[in-house]
Every structure is written in structure tokens, then in C-alpha cells.
């Protein structure tokens, strides 16, 4: 169980001098559900880009099931068993949910097998089952661009599952969803976690509390801290990153801090 599915060492990514990730270390156990939080610009999306092969690291390496991912292209990494859900749902809008799922479900992704083989019946059954899980049976055969935002989010999660990866990367699955949808998404992810390793990136703290066992906080391209949700919430470093120097605990100190430049100096008229 404690076998690592994903190990990241000394990961650094430079974009034209800007360090999106800085000497980042990270590892994920097989079967773990991990939530990553962090302020905007902390490098969360770059982190996913690196794992999925969209961006290549400047330094350091990513090992998935013990294999270094650097030489592989996106589609090869996807075939090795890493699935990604994007921040804004990216489903194929001119295809129906069923077709979307069937494409993701396809096991042999070569040109000719896609062309000549009909969808085998086990895959059809998987797709039907998934449609039920994500609640899209009534809309299974209408174009995906007619789905609501929440339904698209779910469809993309469904596509991810259809791909049956070992590791799921889920970027903000509840952005733009209603409370009810958010909660159902949480349940879905928890049930998925029984058979998959999952990394979720999320802002919605209530949602994080619902699903999280372990939380990693990213800040300025590095891991700031790691732990359970309670540990993280009480970590002074995290509070500082999110709220600034003034700590919430200091209930008495409600006055603004004095400036290094005194007010008299600053206001020259």
C-alpha cells in the first residue's frame, strides 16, 4: 500500500527566468487521495503540466511507478496511466457524452484499431455504467455543448475514469458548481479514491474539508507544508501565506501595524 506511485524530486521549472516551480519535492502513495491548495500563482497548474508531459522540467525528475517521465510525450504518459481533468471542463462539444466517453474508454489507441475495430461490448457496458454514475443517461445522446456547466464537469470526470488511469489529476473540479453539485462531486471523488490514486487541486475549502485526508500547500513553486487538513489549517506558515503577517489568533490586536515609513514621512504634499 505504501508503495509510491508518483515521486518528484528537486523539480524546477523556469519560464524565461521566471521560476514557476522551485526545487519541489513531492510523493504520492498508491491509492492515496491528496488535495493541493495554494494561492494563485503558486505553481499548481504548472505542477500538473509537468506530470502530464506538457511542460518539461528544467531540472529534477518525475517518476511515475518508478519510471522517469521525461522522455515521454503527452499521449504516451496518458497511456501509461495518468489522466487529467482541466480547470474549465474540456469535453468535445460536438460529440455526445456517450461518444466522449467511448473515445476515452478506447483501450487500443492506434490509428488502425480505432478505424477498423468496433467498440467492444465490455467497453460499451463500461460507458453505460459511467453514464449512470455521472447521471447523464437522459442526455447521453445529445451534443455535449448543450450540457450545463456542472454536467460538463461531471462528464469530464467520467472521461477521466473511462480512461481508467492509475493516477487521476483533477484541477478544480467544483469551480462554478452549485453547493449540491459540489457535494455530489466530493462523493464521487471519494468513491473513486477506493480504486485510484488521485491528486485534486482545489480552492473551495469546504470541499477540501469534505474530501481531504492529506493536504499539500504550494507556495511560490515549492511545498510549504503537508499534513492533515487540521494540521494545515493551524500551520502558522500557511496562515501567513493566506492572510498575511497578522495572525488570526491575535484577537486583541485589531489595529493596523505601523509602517516602516512613518506616516509623516510618507505624506509629503
Amino acid at each position, binding site marked *: 500500500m505504501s508503495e509510491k506511485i508518483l515521486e518528484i524530486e528537486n523539480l524546477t521549472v523556469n519560464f524565461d527566468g521566471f521560476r514557476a516551480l522551485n526545487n519541489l519535492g513531492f510523493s504520492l502513495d498508491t491509492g492515496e487521495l491528496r488535495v493541493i491548495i495554494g494561492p494563485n500563482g503558486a505553481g499548481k497548474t504548472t505542477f500538473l*503540466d509537468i506530470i*502530464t508531459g*506538457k511542460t518539461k522540467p528544467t531540472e529534477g525528475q518525475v517518476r511515475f511507478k518508478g519510471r522517469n517521465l521525461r522522455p515521454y*510525450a*503527452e*499521449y*504516451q504518459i*496518458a*497511456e501509461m496511466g495518468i*489522466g*487529467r481533468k*482541466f*480547470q*474549465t471542463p*474540456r469535453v*468535445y*462539444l*460536438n*460529440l*455526445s457524452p456517450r*461518444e466522449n466517453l*467511448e*473515445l*476515452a474508454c*478506447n483501450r487500443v*489507441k*492506434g*490509428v488502425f484499431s*480505432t*478505424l477498423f*475495430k*468496433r*467498440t467492444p461490448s465490455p467497453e460499451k457496458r463500461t460507458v453505460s455504467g459511467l453514464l449512470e454514475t455521472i447521471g447523464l443517461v437522459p442526455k447521453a445522446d445529445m*451534443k455535449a*455543448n*448543450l*450540457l450545463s456547466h456542472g454536467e460538463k464537469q461531471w462528464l469530464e470526470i467520467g*472521461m477521466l475514469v473511462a*480512461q481508467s488511469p492509475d493516477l487521476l489529476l483533477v484541477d478544480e473540479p467544483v469551480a462554478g458548481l452549485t453547493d449540491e453539485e459540489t457535494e455530489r462531486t466530493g462523493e464521487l471523488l471519494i468513491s473513486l479514491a477506493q480504486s485510484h490514486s488521485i491528486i485534486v487541486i482545489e480552492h473551495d475549502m469546504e470541499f477540501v474539508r469534505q474530501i481531504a485526508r492529506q493536504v499539500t500547500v504550494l507556495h511560490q513553486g515549492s511545498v510549504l507544508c503537508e499534513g492533515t487538513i487540521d494540521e494545515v489549517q493551524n500551520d502558522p506558515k500557511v496562515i501567513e501565506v493566506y492572510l498575511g503577517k497578522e495572525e488570526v489568533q491575535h484577537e486583541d490586536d485589531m489595529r493596523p501595524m505601523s509602517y516602516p515609513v512613518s506616516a509623516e514621512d510618507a505624506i509629503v504634499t
Partner: protein
Amino acid sequence: MTTAQIERGGVGISRKLMVEAAIVLGIMLFLIFVLPLLMSDFRLNLTGRFLALSIAALGIDLIWGFTGMLSLGHGVFFTLGGYALAMYLKLQIPANASSQLPEFMGLYGVTELPWFWKPFYSFPITALMVVLLPAIVAAILGYLIFRNRIRGVYFSILTQATTIIFFNFFNGQQKLFNGTNGLTDFKTLFGLEVSKPGAQYVFYVLTILFLAATYALSRWLTSGRFGRLLVAIRDDEPRVRFTGYNPTGFKVLVFAISAAFAGLAGALFTLQTGIISPNSMNIAFSIEMVIWVAVGGRATLVGAILGTLVVNFAKSNLSEKFPDIWLFFQGALFLLVVLFLPNGIVGWLRDRGLDTFQNLTGKRKRSMTYPSLEEDPEVDYERKNTGD
């Protein structure tokens, strides 16, 4: 139309397919047996030519309409197919003729048949070359372009440059291909005199059969999983990659198939016009092909055929009556279609038809998410940043 209806092996679906096949068969029978009674030989020949062109339009539709790659180089593939057949025809020299070479070679002092003409003595090889030659050229070119993830307008520009290159090449090689004049003055095919009405009727029927076959092939390609993957590549290529497919192979294959269609069209067209020259490789012709599809409605196979026929009949009528200002019409057609009829005739009919239907049944028109998503800055940003 075609992508929406997917065979799922159910009874209802296969009945739909039967109906469609019946309709296609009906149209074919009408074209083969009834139309010749209604038209003069000249008009019938025109119809045959346009039907041949619509085979090329089907190819354009496959790569542009379904896969989203705008090729401006299909004139090349069209002409290659035409030349392949024309070379066979030029080698049908009566045994008693003074020279056993195509006559133009004599003019340029060629004494021995160039090596690459020799395979074209054989009809099976020729028939194969008509489709294989353009397909191979397209596959090589496509592979070199797609593997570097060059796409969008860059692909269009490179295909356009290809037309110029082939145009220059064929124009410059008088000894090999008779240069600007092209290959013409065909005599016989299987003992049939090519220019006689009887032979032309045979070619006309042949064109219809091939059109039906390519239609069926396109229909098969664009239904199943393969077709859905093409649409997926058009809608969001990076996403396809993250799902575990390598789009390059798919794009190369579909580009090659569409080139083969163009080659076939070129061969049939050459049979019916009696000439093939580098002129059909000029840029204008290749872009015209695209506009046929745009007028008919991209991503609808029927639209590609319909558009070809509509535009070409309009062209032959208008350019007869107003030869001076045909280009004005054509230019305006481009503008109007792009600005006001982005889904073409078939798309417009479909959308309007759906609206009317929904109005009748009292349903409100569904709001479309697709265009608004296009404007969505987040999606746009993500597309840009995850798109290579």
C-alpha cells in the same frame, strides 16, 4: 447530420442506414437513367465533371469540415491523379504509329520514354497510382508538418506553397510532362474512343459510381470511433493528446485519404474534359474547392456535394452570361459565406429547420454554449496555454 447518427448496432439505427442507402440508390438511378433524357450531351458532360469535382470536395470536407485542417493544396493531388491517368492514356499509341512515344516528346527531341512513364503502360498500376500517388505525397508532407505540431494557418500556408512548387515543377518540365500545355488529345481507352458521347456516358456513370463509393467510404470514416476522434481533434487537439491518442497518425491518414479522393476526382475530371494541365494546380482552384464545401456546409458530407454542384453550375451559367464580372460574384460569395453563412446551406437549413420545428412545438430554442465558450477568456487562456 452524419456524425450525429451513430450506429450502435441497434435495429432502429440500421433501419435509418437502410433508408439512407435507399435514398442514395434512388438518386444514383435518377442520375444514371433519367437525367440523360432531360439534358443535352453538353450539359450532361458538365454535370459529370461537377460530380467528379464533388469527390474532391468530399475529401476537403473530411480534413477541413471534420478534422479542422484547412488544406489549400488539394489542386496538387487533383492534378496528380489527373496526370497519372493521362499518362496511361497518352501511352495508348496505335502499333502502326510512326513513333511509340507521346507526340509532344517528339517536339522536344525526347527519344526514349523516361523511366517513370513506363509503369503507366499497365492499367492496374495506373489505377493504383491515381489514388496512391497523391496519397503518398500527402502522407509525406502531412507527416513532416504534423509531427512538429504545425497547424492552423501555418498548415494552410505550407499546403499553399506546395501548389506553387508542383505548379512550377510541372510547368518547367516540358520534356517530361509537356510543360504548360499539359497532357491532352487523348485517343482511346480500352479500345473506346474517348471523345465519343458513348464513352463520355460511360465515364459519367463511372463518376456516379465512384462518387457513391467515396460517399459511402466517407460516411463510414466519419461515423464510428474514428470519425468521432476526427471531430475531437478539430474541437480540442491538446485534449486528445492527454486522453492518450497521438493525433499525428490520425491526421496523416485522413490527409492522405482526402488526397486520394482528390486524385480520383482529378482522373475522372480529366476523362471528361480531355485535358489535364498544371493550371489546375494554381492557387485559385485549390481555394475554390474549399469554398464549395463552405457553401454547402462543412462537416456535412451532403453539403460538400451540394455545394460543389451549386457553385459550379452557378459559375458555368454566370460566367457564360457575365464573363467580365464572374470574379466579383465569386469574391462576394467567399465574403458572404464566411461572414453570414458560416455553416453553409445545409447548416443553415438544419439550424433554421430545428428552430422552426421548435417554434411549432412551442419549445424554446436551446441556448448554445459553444459560441459563448469560445469567448470565455478562461477557456481561451487555457487553450492557448495548454495548446502546445
